[in-house]
Structure formats: C-alpha cells, structure tokens
C-alpha cells in the first residue's frame, strides 16, 4: 500500500515539474540580459576574460590564446579584438582564431534579423571561395535573439571552417567569428563556449 502511495507521489511531483518547465519554456522571452556563464569544468580548457569597458563587451577566451586588440575600423566596422592560437601538431601547423566586430554605422532598424541573415549569407557566399554552408540556425547571444552559421571555405592549402554568430543591440551589430584552419582543427566546443560567455552591457 505504501509503495503505491510513494509511486503516486513521485508521478505527481514529476508531472508538476514537467508542466512548470513547459510553462517556463513557453514564457521565455529573449529580451533580458541573461548571462550564461559556463562552468570552468565544462571544458578541458581554462578561459580568461576579455572585458572592454568602452564597448561594454565581455567574452571569455581560452587561456592559451593570445589577444590582439583594436585591429582597425573598416567602414564603421570596428574589429574590436582577435584571439588567436598558434598550434603545432607534429611537423604541421594549424590556426584557431576568434574575433569580435562591432558595427555602429549601419542602418539596421528596417531589417529584421531574418532578412539580415539571408542577405549576409548571400554576401558571404559571394566573397568567400567555395563557400559551403553547413548550419544556419537561430540562437541566443547575451540573452538577445541571434543567429549562428557554420560553413567551410577554401583556404590556401586546406579548408577553413568557421562559425559566426551575430546579434543586434541598440544601433550596434555585434558579430563573433571563430575560425580554424585546417578545418579538422575546428573545435565546436571552443566556439560555443566563447559565444555562451558573450556579455553585452
């Protein structure tokens, strides 16, 4: 008898948890500044924090990477920082790098994120050699609606695999790009960890 009471209580409790979870999911609005900070033990790598007070951008990057800041401004697109890693595997070299570009000169009010995404992918395909889109999906960056794409392009001697995610905050368009060459060294966890750590203040 007691066994059935315990089972009924467990099933009831589980039902409440499921219903509440669904309600939370339905009610999720990606408009707040939710900062998802991954735990240090979620990856084998340690991460350092890059915090730029002037732009209000904070992001984490692998501790064994180097940092180049303020790389230049191209037509209103500020290449805020590039994180890079020089890898040597046996007698071969590989490269990983990630950068953040902030644009403050584009008129983006009239474009929805979807329109922006479609036109952006077309432009990328036109400007990169042998552009092959592997993934394109909506995501969340710093609690804001964002879009992420993953693709392969032809490099000088091997394929390059890149992931880019972008979002719009106010009148700024923020783009995070992660790249690896050759593509075999593409680490999706590194890319996702960095994107998850992005905080726009």
């Amino acid at each position, binding site marked *: 008898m007691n066994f059935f009471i315990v089972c009924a209580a467990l099933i009831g409790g589980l039902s409440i948890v499921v219903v509440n979870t669904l309600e939370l999911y339905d009610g999720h609005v990606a408009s707040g500044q939710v900062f998802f900070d991954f735990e240090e033990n979620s990856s084998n790598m340690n991460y350092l924090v890059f915090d730029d007070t002037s732009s209000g951008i904070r992001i984490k990057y692998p501790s064994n990477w180097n940092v*180049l800041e303020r*790389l230049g401004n191209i037509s209103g*697109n500020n290449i805020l920082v590039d994180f890079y890693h*020089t890898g040597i595997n046996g007698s071969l070299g*590989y490269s990983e790098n990630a*950068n953040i570009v902030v*644009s403050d000169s584009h008129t983006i009010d009239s474009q929805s994120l979807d329109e922006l995404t479609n036109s952006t992918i077309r432009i990328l395909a036109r*400007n990169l050699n042998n552009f092959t889109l592997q993934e394109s999906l909506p995501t969340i960056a710093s609690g804001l609606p964002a879009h992420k794409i993953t693709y392969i392009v032809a490099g000088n001697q091997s394929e390059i695999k890149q992931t*880019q995610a972008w979002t719009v905050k106010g009148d700024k368009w923020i783009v995070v*790009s992660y790249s690896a060459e050759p593509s075999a060294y593409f680490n999706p966890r590194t890319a996702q960890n960095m994107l998850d750590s992005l905080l726009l203040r």
Partner: protein
Amino acid sequence: MRGSLIMLIIFLTCPISLFYTDAHSQEQVQTSPQNIIDENLTVSGLENTTRIRINETETTTDPVTIGALTSVAMNKVILNVTQNVLNETARILELKEFVLRVSAQESDDSTLSLNFSALDSETSSELPGVSIDGWIANGSGISTYFFSGLTDSNGRSAFTLHTQADELYNTTLTVEAFLRGYSSQKQSAAFTLGA
C-alpha cells in the same frame, strides 16, 4: 611573434585588401614564411583596387563579412608564422657532422701548444666559430689545465699551455666542441709527453 603579428594585422586589416586577395584572386598566394613581407607589399599594391570594390558594393562591408575575412586573414598570418617556426626548427634539427683535429706540440719542457682545426665532414670546408672547451686530466683524474675559445675564419684555434713535462705524463686531453647546426663533439685522447 606578437610584434610581427601586430604589424601584419594592422597592415592587413586597414586596407582589407588581403581579404579580397583571398576572395577574388585566382593567383596562388605565396605561402613560404619568408614571403610574409612580400605579401604586405602586395597588400599595399591592391589597396586602390579594393577600395573601388568596396564602393561598388556597400553591403560587402557588413560586420559579418568583415569578421569572416578577418578570421581568414588571421589564419593565413598565423600559419605563415607557424610555418616559419617549423622550418627554423627543422633546419636546426638537420644536424651535420664536423671533424675536429688536434695536434699537440711540447717545447722546452714548459710549453704545450694545442692546435685545433674544424672541418665539415661532408664538404671538408673550414668551420669558423666552433666553440671549443677542453681540459687535461692527470692519471689520477684530476683536471689540471683548462682552455676554451672559438675557431677563426680558417677553422683553426690554437692554445698555449704553460706546463711542466712531468705533469703531462700519462695524461688525458678531453675536448668538447659545439657549432650551431652541427652535432656536438666530445673527444678525449690519452697521450704522454716529455717521455
């Protein structure tokens, strides 16, 4: 490396012409590390062309494209530098052999002259700059004389030791020699002088 990267990146990103070199040029870009500087010169030369392209299509300067092309350019720079390091490492590891010859000459029972010559074992060319460290140990293993120096432009090095003849009886001369890019040499030979 950081300094060279900074210079390269500033050079590359400002005109963003490297992007368009990668994106549009059908020419094979030079990949050997020593050509990094040459690439910069190429970048400067393409600047005007690039600006025209930017003006033609304003949308190509969106931040996503800039981010993508920056990543491509950074990979290229990083791999060039990395390849440079790898090549340098490989060059160092390709160790060659050299031959070190020594002749010992005693005079007046008080002076010992040691004359060294270093030659490449394959080409027999004289090797300057060979670092030589040596010492003489007596029969008990106690080192009594020390000398060190570099071979001259003729691959030669001479040392004069002021000795006493009876001290050189049944002694051992040990010499270590080093030259970058060559296997190190350590040789020893027992000799008796003044007998």
